[in-house]
């Protein structure tokens, strides 16, 4: 019998499931500590975060925490592996598009003219691993929205597995990571458009026993600006919100970071994502804007 706890964190929901009910309180403590650490390192919406300090000091080296260094490494690796489709230098593009506050504080309609510009490019980010320190040129602003939450899920799941009896499933706003042994049959997961919509919402249910699972969707975090509808998934090549060929993409991978990189890149790549995901043998479920569903690699058919 599994047990779970759920609370609000990082502007979304956090949830931890355990196979040993007696470990639930400790599991929550471990996850909360990890979330506090990742928020202090990578939040775009608090002035004292490493990321905010780097963005506020273009052209000079800014000393950062080891966790921020890890997050930079993950973000730049994601950019390289996706040939720039998931690029951490979209910070300015997000801000210009109107996503300049924590989403809970964001008004539904942003007024004023919007000028889109391509992301400057991840190759401009410099890292001094020894200090550690990071430097970005003027005009470059970092955003780790595509990788930091997934990194936190992976780290929290690993930390729980190391510290607790039994297994855990960590769920940060729909980014899932498995740690330790799974319950018999795996962890049941409803895959849908909105992580907050509840288990009964339209979608499919699968069970995972290892690694991570992440979903990206343009059905959530939407607002209007002076140029029309906007959402939080930016195409770095143009600086515009990505096209909406896919409404929602879910990917299972070896860990949550990998799953989130792939699901985000798939949203940006549009129709070409099918072949790309298949070439990587990543089980994925993709839903078009009109609701058609495509399954890739070993993503299972709906259970009878």
């Amino acid at each position, binding site marked *: 019998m599994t047990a779970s706890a759920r609370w609000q964190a990082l502007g979304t*929901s956090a949830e931890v499931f355990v196979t040993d009910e007696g470990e639930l309180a400790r599991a929550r403590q471990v996850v909360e500590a990890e979330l506090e650490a990742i928020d202090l390192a990578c939040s775009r919406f608090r002035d004292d975060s490493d990321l905010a300090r780097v963005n506020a000091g273009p052209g000079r*080296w800014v000393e950062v925490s080891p966790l921020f260094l890890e997050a930079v490494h993950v973000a730049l*690796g*994601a950019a*390289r*592996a*996706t*040939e720039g489709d998931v690029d951490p230098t979209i910070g300015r593009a997000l801000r210009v598009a109107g996503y300049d506050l924590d989403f809970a504080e964001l008004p539904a309609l942003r007024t004023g003219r919007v000028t889109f510009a391509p992301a*400057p490019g991840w*190759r*401009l*980010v*410099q*890292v*001094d691993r020894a200090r550690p*320190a990071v*430097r970005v*040129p*003027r005009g470059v602003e970092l955003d780790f929205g595509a990788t930091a*939450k997934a990194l936190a899920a992976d780290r929290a799941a690993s930390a729980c597995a190391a510290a607790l009896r039994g297994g855990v*499933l960590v*769920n940060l*706003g*729909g980014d*899932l990571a498995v740690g330790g042994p799974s319950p018999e049959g*795996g962890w*049941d*997961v*409803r*895959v*849908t*458009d*909105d992580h*907050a919509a509840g*288990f009964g*919402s339209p979608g499919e249910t*699968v*069970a*995972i*026993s*290892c*690694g991570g699972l*992440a*979903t990206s*969707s343009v*059905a959530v*975090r939407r607002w209007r600006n002076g140029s029309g509808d906007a959402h939080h998934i930016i195409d770095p090549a143009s600086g515009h919100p990505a096209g909406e060929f896919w409404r*929602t993409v*879910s990917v*299972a*991978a*070896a860990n949550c970071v*990998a799953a989130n*990189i792939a699901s985000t890149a798939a949203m940006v790549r549009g129709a070409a994502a099918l072949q790309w995901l298949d070439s*990587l043998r*990543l*089980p994925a479920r993709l839903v078009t804007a009109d609701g058609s569903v495509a399954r890739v*690699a*070993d993503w*299972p058919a709906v259970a009878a």
Partner: protein
Amino acid sequence: MRAGRIKRWLVGGAVALAGLFSAAVSNAMPVDDPPGSDAVLVKPALGHTSELQASLIAPPATPPRASTASRGAVSGGS
């Protein structure tokens, strides 16, 4: 005389554009490392995108399987 004036405009314009381009590049490119720094540009250890993809974006050891459960976690956009 008029041709000379046009030529001067063209030359002046070219110089101005070159200056603007230089300024833009100096803002867009990485600045020099400080003397004595061991700073390095991040270069992933693997040379090819396909190799990096295979290592960084790897599939799960066991793929998901279909389930008929009525409760559990929810994965969706956030």
